[in-house]
């Protein structure tokens, strides 16, 4: 019995959804509306005291960490394996997951947070409200310090440089193999897709001409039934990924 408490099939929230759909597994999807801060609601905090998504529960075993949770699910859930057998390729798979989780995602989050209306533009009252519901007091206190400190122009410029650099890293690697961790689709691709899925639509620096290897990888990934099924679960991400597929020349 698998229960997934999560938001849209996007970023960390999307990891268990993309994985379980790839496996064709049955699971109970409980939608947590992050727009309404449901991840901090008293009922949810009983399930996950960190107040983060996703929470994956398998036969009573609760997991709050999304990337380690993917390796667990790949191991225990029936269906096609998503981890290479060769130890070197397994290392590579984990390298890519960390690259996305620790290098790319924080840079993207910094840019999203600094855009108009983002959390770095908040008033004092909005900052108070934003941290008031964070369930761990220690984290709430630190979050308030982070919000007060804000993000400098220099840091923003650096986050843009890192994203551009990451695109180059993807493009080079995907010239050497069809997928990130070798010739076969793995958790590394699945992890990256939860973040990158709409780049062909949203970013001018991603195109068939500018990034042909990455573009071909997007076509291969978006053509997968598991990916399609997972994005279709979303209340709004699915509409956008439909447009992405059209732009990639794939069937709706």
């Amino acid at each position, binding site marked *: 019995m698998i229960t997934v408490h999560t938001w849209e099939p996007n970023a960390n929230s999307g990891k268990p959804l993309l994985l379980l759909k790839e496996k064709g597994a049955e699971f109970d999807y409980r939608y947590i509306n992050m727009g309404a801060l449901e991840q901090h609601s008293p009922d949810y905090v009983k399930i996950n005291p*960190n107040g*983060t998504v996703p929470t994956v529960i398998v036969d009573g*075993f609760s*997991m709050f*960490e999304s*990337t*380690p*949770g993917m*390796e*667990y699910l790949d*191991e*225990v859930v029936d269906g096609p394996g998503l981890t290479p057998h060769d*130890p*070197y390729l*397994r*290392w590579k798979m*984990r*390298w890519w997951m*960390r690259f996305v989780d*620790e290098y790319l995602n*924080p840079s993207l*989050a*910094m840019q999203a947070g600094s855009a108009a209306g983002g959390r770095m533009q908040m008033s004092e009252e909005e900052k108070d409200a934003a941290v008031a519901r964070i369930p*761990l007091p*220690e*984290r709430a*206190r*630190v979050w308030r*310090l*982070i919000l*007060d*400190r804000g993000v400098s122009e220099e840091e923003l410029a*650096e986050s843009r*440089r890192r994203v551009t650099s990451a695109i180059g890293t993807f493009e080079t690697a995907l010239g050497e193999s069809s997928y990130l961790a070798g010739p076969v689709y793995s958790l590394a691709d699945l992890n990256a897709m939860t973040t990158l899925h709409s780049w062909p639509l949203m970013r001018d620096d991603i195109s068939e001409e500018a990034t042909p290897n990455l573009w071909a990888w997007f076509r291969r990934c978006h053509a997968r039934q598991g990916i399609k099924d997972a994005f279709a679960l979303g209340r709004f991400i699915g509409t956008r990924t439909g447009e992405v597929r059209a732009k990639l020349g794939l069937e709706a």
Partner: protein
Amino acid sequence: MIELYHWEPTSNSGEVLILLKEKGVDFVGHYVDVLKGEQFSADFLALNPCGQVPVLVHDGRPLTETGFILQYLEEVFPAVSLTPSTPEGRYWVNVWIKYVEEYIAPAAWKLGIARTVADLGERRSVIEAALGRAPPERRQAWAKAFAGFDAVDLEIARGLLPVRLERMEAALGASDWLAGDHYSLADIAVFPTAAALPDVAPDLVNASATPRTWEWLERMRARPAVRAALAAAKTPRPQAVFAPGPEGSRWG
């Protein structure tokens, strides 16, 4: 053939040195003095463009990212097994590897580096000269270390620790070891960085605030492999010297 490019048997380098000793795997070690900027030599950057130790070279292929080097060695040399026997235990190994990278290591180096910088003497100009060849991420991290962290930076860094320390105490209340009933990769991943905490956060990690962690540190130091790894140190108190490490989680 196994080669390891490493610094002192502390933090990241310490993890791999301990595991190799535990497994009794012969290797050729190359000491890289990161306080002399040797990680930014042209030869080393050819091996790891990120300019960080440790790097494991197996059959000519360089591997980076410490936690994943541990998992690779475990898969390639399984005779002495340090992997938990259950998927739940293996999930926790991955989680502890993540906790080190995102919470414990960023807190430890940011809290500890001021003293290392103060003690550098003439080596500071040697590092500054070598930084001309370093990738931007490392240049930025050293620039912050040289400039010094202010009180708010240090408070944010310290804020990474309490929740992880609670989890360590909880895990070590259920068993002598972090990921299940037996000594495992999780203990090896956490120990070299956690061993620095009594120095850099003495009010948070001590015999009365974190008694189980305190005893676990003692248990770890008593292991022959850990003693052997630590005995190879070139500085008198390797747990008290730092180089800039990962940036730390901005969420959760």
